[in-house]
């Protein structure tokens, strides 16, 4: 599969269909996988595909430094592909001007604190039903295998993995939940790594960086941290694709994507909306239906 991927990218670069390919390569400590930017067809062997390709590369599509390299091809997993769809739906990329190379992903392995693969799948992969990336231009890998894996996960998609963690949290009393987040947010240092790693936090100037007036405290106090994390999560309402880049980036190990999952579940339950599923779909917030539920309004 890795060879198939390299060949496909080589062809794109050789035929000058794209100027740069954003893919995975062994770039970090001890060969840890991170993003590589291949512009020369002779360098496609730097690209790898394996169960340690954790990062969502779609974050690079809106970065000016990467845009400067020209028309991109991007390697995406199923979850990442949905981020590309949201970027296109929100007018952040011209879908015609990006070649999306999807891979069949059989699941990504978690890593320990040293970044060494643990051998167990990430929570998000346990409930994944998009092993083959959708809405892509080229799909690398065995689609039949992907369908099998999807079918195997489907019964547990709403209950296993991260959903189970969220369910466990929701079992607690509101006071316990508040205390849980209080403990978690007390570690937040307000580095905003969650925002920077998120493919959909693409604003040129985040409200957290605005100071005329200051919308939320910049200080890493509980007050500021609550305000920030509420804001971050809700600005992704109906948009988050559940790639988990935020949680993965958090140096303080805060399970930020539980908040995003809550909103994704609510979007699905209340409005039947799954972010990034459909190219051309209208954004969830920004549209409405006259019969939206309102039993909570008096």
């Amino acid at each position: 599969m890795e060879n198939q991927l390299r060949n496909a990218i080589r062809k794109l670069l050789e035929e000058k269909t794209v100027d740069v390919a954003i893919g995975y390569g062994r770039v970090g400590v001890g060969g840890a996988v991170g993003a590589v930017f291949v512009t020369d067809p002779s360098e496609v062997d730097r690209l790898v595909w394996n169960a340690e390709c954790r990062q969502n590369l779609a974050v690079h599509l809106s970065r000016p430094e990467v845009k400067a390299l020209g028309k991109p091809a991007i390697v995406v997993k199923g979850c990442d592909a949905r981020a590309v769809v949201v970027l296109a739906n929100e007018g952040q990329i011209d879908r015609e001007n990006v070649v999306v190379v999807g891979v069949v992903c059989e699941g990504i392995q978690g890593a320990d604190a040293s970044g060494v693969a643990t051998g167990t799948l990430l929570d998000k992969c346990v409930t994944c039903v998009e092993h083959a990336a959708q809405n892509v231009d080229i799909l690398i890998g065995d689609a039949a295998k992907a369908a099998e894996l999807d079918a195997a996960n489907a019964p547990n998609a709403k209950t296993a993995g991260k959903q189970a963690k969220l369910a466990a949290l929701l079992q607690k009393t509101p006071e316990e939940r508040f205390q849980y987040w209080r403990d978690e947010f007390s570690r937040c240092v307000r580095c905003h790594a969650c925002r920077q790693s998120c493919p959909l936090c693409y604003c040129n100037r985040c409200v957290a960086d605005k100071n005329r007036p200051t919308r939320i405290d910049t200080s890493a106090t509980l007050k500021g941290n609550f305000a920030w994390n509420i804001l971050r999560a809700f600005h992704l309402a109906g948009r988050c694709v559940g790639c988990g880049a935020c949680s993965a980036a958090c140096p303080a190990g805060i399970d930020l994507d539980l908040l995003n999952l809550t909103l994704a579940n609510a979007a699905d339950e209340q409005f039947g909306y799954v972010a990034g599923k459909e190219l051309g779909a209208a954004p969830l917030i920004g549209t409405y239906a006259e019969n939206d539920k309102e039993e909570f309004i008096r």
Partner: protein
Amino acid sequence: MSQVVTLEQLKKLAADKLSAGARVVAPVVDGGLVSFKEISDAAQATFAPQVRVQNSIKEFFFPKHEVIFTFVRKGNDVEVIDAPDFEDDQIIIGARPCDAAALPILDPLFGWDYQDRFFQQRRAKTTVVTFACKETDAHCFCAAVDGGPDNQAGSDAMLFDLGDGSFEVRTFTDKGAALFAGIATESDKTGSACAPPTCDFDVEKVAVWITENFGSPEWEKLSLRCVGCGACAYVCPTCHCFDIVDEGSYSKGQRVKNWDACQAGMFTLHASGHNPRSTQGKRQRQRLTHKFSIYPGKFGPYLCTGCGNCSRSCGASFGVRPALETLNADVVQNQED
């Protein structure tokens, strides 16, 4: 003869200090996450050598958020009320040698010519006890930047795990000796640290390249995969950039000093809209230049202890070690060839 304390004695030491009103900081293990935290009960701590800690002990000297002063507007006048002095005793038990080593590196910065009393008072009131490392991981490179698994720099005392529920104590300062006086007992057991981590690059050579190649296109290439999250700076024991902001209202509020990071695009943005460090390449260049050229040029040591926190916490598999390795492989080696 060596001096030895048992784990029980260490716990009791922490408990005694707590009841005497001191602040006690120690590694706290929660699931897979290890944090240095101020504890309220000795039982919360895990007194064992750690490698992978999500933060550094920096925050107990230079907190992520600190009030500099408060103010109250009184008619036309403004009363400025200074922040209180740091007067508590503070004991850190279980820091890593690479955490402690950052303290003497930061001393000259905070006491250059203007004296930052917030850092200095904490420094004076704190006793730092480290654990000599028992293991390293692929991110560690202390040995490459003048450190090591039993580096004494910044430690008042160091504990060597003897593997039998006790530790050999070596004290390096009066503060360290005072802490263990009357507790440690004589023994013939001696401990040792693990072997230093290996590195196949020469920091000195890379540092020379960094100093001489400010305008190199390599910086942008090197930094392409960096998304500018700045987590590296927040977990770094030596990174010390900060922001000063006012909070509260026009009539009553406070001015605070908050951690900041040179990787943020806004960091150097002028009010005019001009930004001298407008790309991630320039920002990474600043980070590495600061660590390996500017700081040693001004104060001597590298602004890096080789702890590996940056690359461990980097979502993009980047950080100081990968950056040095890449520069070494791509440019330094090429120069030599």
